[in-house]
């Protein structure tokens, strides 16, 4: 009986509405959290694992030495590498393909790399126009690396103290 009376008072005094409006009015004065992607971006951890890139040394020499440890560690078999002896006698890749449909972005390749050649950048907004487009080759990976080198090295720098 007492319960019924309480509900009746609440209903007639627009109690539900007041509760709802309380949240609304609180958020009305609070700081906004909506981000206007792609003009605005949320902050990303230095350890974020996005699109892959192959890096170069400051003198322009590619870092990758075709040791194939990333290929071996990759749980999704997404990496395919072919190697050869370059004219100067160093060990280099002739082919370095990553199938982004297979990739699960676990970051093991980055962990396994002895020369910090393969890295996962903070790029996550990319699209393919065909099915074959999911496989990115060595040239494209090096391009991504060249374009984003400053961001990559900054992220590495920030993360280095935890390693």
């Amino acid at each position, binding site marked *: 009986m007492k319960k019924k009376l309480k509900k009746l008072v609440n209903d007639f005094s627009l109690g539900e509405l007041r509760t709802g409006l309380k949240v609304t009015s609180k958020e009305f004065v609070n700081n906004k959290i909506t981000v206007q992607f792609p003009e605005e971006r949320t902050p990303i951890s230095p350890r974020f694992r996005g699109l892959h890139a192959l890096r170069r040394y400051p003198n322009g020499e590619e870092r990758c*030495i075709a*040791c194939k440890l990333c290929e071996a560690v990759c749980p999704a078999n997404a990496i395919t590498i072919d190697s050869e002896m370059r004219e100067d006698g160093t060990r280099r890749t002739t082919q370095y393909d990553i199938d982004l449909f297979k990739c699960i972005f676990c970051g093991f390749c980055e962990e396994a790399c002895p020369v910090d050649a393969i890295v996962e950048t903070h790029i996550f907004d990319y699209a393919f126009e065909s099915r074959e487009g999911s496989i990115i080759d060595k040239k494209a990976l090096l391009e991504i690396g060249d374009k984003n080198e400053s961001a990559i090295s900054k992220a590495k720098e920030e993360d280095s103290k935890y390693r």
Partner: protein
Amino acid sequence: MSDIEIEIDGQLVRANQGDSIINIADREGIEVPRFCYHKKLSVAANCRMCLVDVEGVPKAQPACSTPAANGMKIHTKNDKAKFAQKAVMEFLLINHPLDCPICDQGGECELQDVAMEYGSDVSKFNEGKRIVPDKGIGALIQTDMTRCIHCTRCVRFGAEVAGIVEMGGTGRGEGVKIEPFLTEGIQSELSGNMIDVCPVGALTSKPFRYEARTWQMNAVQSVARHDLVGSNIYTQSYRGKVKRVVARDNDSINETWISDRDRFSYEGLNHESRALKPKVKIDGLWQETDWQEALKFAIDGIKNNANSSEQFGVLSSKYASLEEFYLLQKLARNFGTENIDFRLDQAQLSNASSLESTITLSEIESIDHALIVGSYTRLEQPMINHRIRKATLNGASVNTINSKKFDFNYKTGLDVLTSPQKLRATLQSVLKAIHNKTNKDAPSFLSQVSPEDIHNKIADDLIESKNGVIVLGEHLNSNLDSIAITSLIEQIASAADLKIANITLSGNSLSAEKVGFMPDEKGMSAASMFNESTKAFLLMDVDLEYDFFDSKSAQDCFNQEDVFVVALSSFENQSLLNGADVILPMASYYETSGTHINFDGQAQSFSASVKSPGDSKPGWKIIKVMADLFELEGFDYIDSTQVKEQALQLSRNKSSFKDVDFENFDDSQITTHWQYTPYVTDSVTRRASALQKTNIGMIDSAFVSEATAKKLGIGNDDLYLGVPVSIVDSVAEDYVFVHTNQARKA
């Protein structure tokens, strides 16, 4: 047998007095880390990795050089042993570079494995590391001597097994360097084994450099077909291509070693001249087609050109498999022809193949004397030569009767220089000397023979030996007098009670003999087939330039308009394109299952390691389908094991001894012997590029004595039949020994 009892890690073990601890531990499956110890090499005890704790001895002892004694208590894993092992590991890693990611040994490296267990994860060494400059040692072995840990396995291998001391240690302490004494490259025919014995990445395979990582490859047990031994190997393939061949242990056959020919010939498989699609020649133009068309064209061509079945001839190289030999001879015989042969390079269908070896590979080790006739065994049959060398290390003596003095890797006693045409006379003298000394009545044909001093000495050695062997080599094949010589060899062997090692035929010849891949009395042999009467040929893995004794008349015959030639071949070259009318691409070594019969008569089967490239098919399948298209009976095989079972049931087809005319023989002519270097013997090896760049592969000289050169009017560096002349003392008179990688021209 086992006379003492020792305790290793609390486990009671019976052993022989004097056995090294590491030997016993290996037998019992107790792991002791090691670098310098190798079961087939002498004990050096210089790496100190195998230190173990022996109770009652204050310091840890190296397990490889400490003999076991009764009641010894050994700990391989207690604190003292571990401490010693870890300390040694730390020392070894001081100067070892951290380049495992680019090292071809990475993944199969003994140092890596042992470091995982005994190494520390942090280095205490902050000083500079040692760098050692590399000296090139040839086309087969890549050196990275900075990685060397000075175990000296390669040095001991050279001195003890290869018999040519090529690597050595120079300097002291930190300055020790393992390096070749000579810079012109490794000379040994077994050099590739240094790659296998090297526990680190200091010596790696040069053709394999950076091709694939060890863990990516698929290893298949196989058998090498290049010689009579049938060395056991693993083929390692990556993405359907053979990338490397390594030795597989088999004590009764190849022990732990394989020859360079077995190890590096795989390169030829990926040669650009591979036949990939069936081809037919219509009006002189080659057209690629599919299997059905090509087979129909081949069958029709044979049927149309061979008016009677006797006009059809079947030839094969020595290197096909037992199954292929069996099916091909069955096809020919069911077709109605006896014109079947594999002895393409024999000058005379000699008695040589009827001479059976009476010794096994492992028995060769225990001989006390060997007489080598007509063989540069070191290059031609490296593994058999290795067994003879092992016998010489145990005190056996070796005499040779050769047309040139060859560079054996053991000391030979008496070397008789005899040209092929005089070989009969020499052997007759030796036989006569044996008869004289044993007071037996000599056969009548020896009545005119008077042995010289050296023949008497050779006869003495043969008679005195209790366990001697007479080795008959492949130089006999191109000797026009081979029938008489084989017969003399047999008589010498029985007169002096010797065993016979017949190594005249190489490859898989014993399989061919087993299934009777040669004509009976009605048929024609390879040498007599190139006359007008044979109008259709079926060739299997035959190279028209290299394989025939008389390649010119063979090619002339094949090139005739009205001769129809079907070639089952893995490779194409210009001579084949000129001669053949149909090319059916055949799977090559390691691409087909098969069987090899070796010197001991052991039939070793192997399965395919990789798929054959392009449209090529295994030879036995092609032959089976052809037989079906000929509508021949008895070819209902489902797999090659059925073929093998049938083939192995046959008893070896022996050609009977021919009678010899010992009276009339003209030995006044100057003769030429064309001897191939070991790296052009078969179609695959010929195309292996690294082997061709070795010292052995580049041999190309016509050796001639000064007097003979004058008679022929040639001088040093002139060309004799296209081969540079080299005037030397160590060659028989009236004779030219052409040792070359070029195709036969005489």
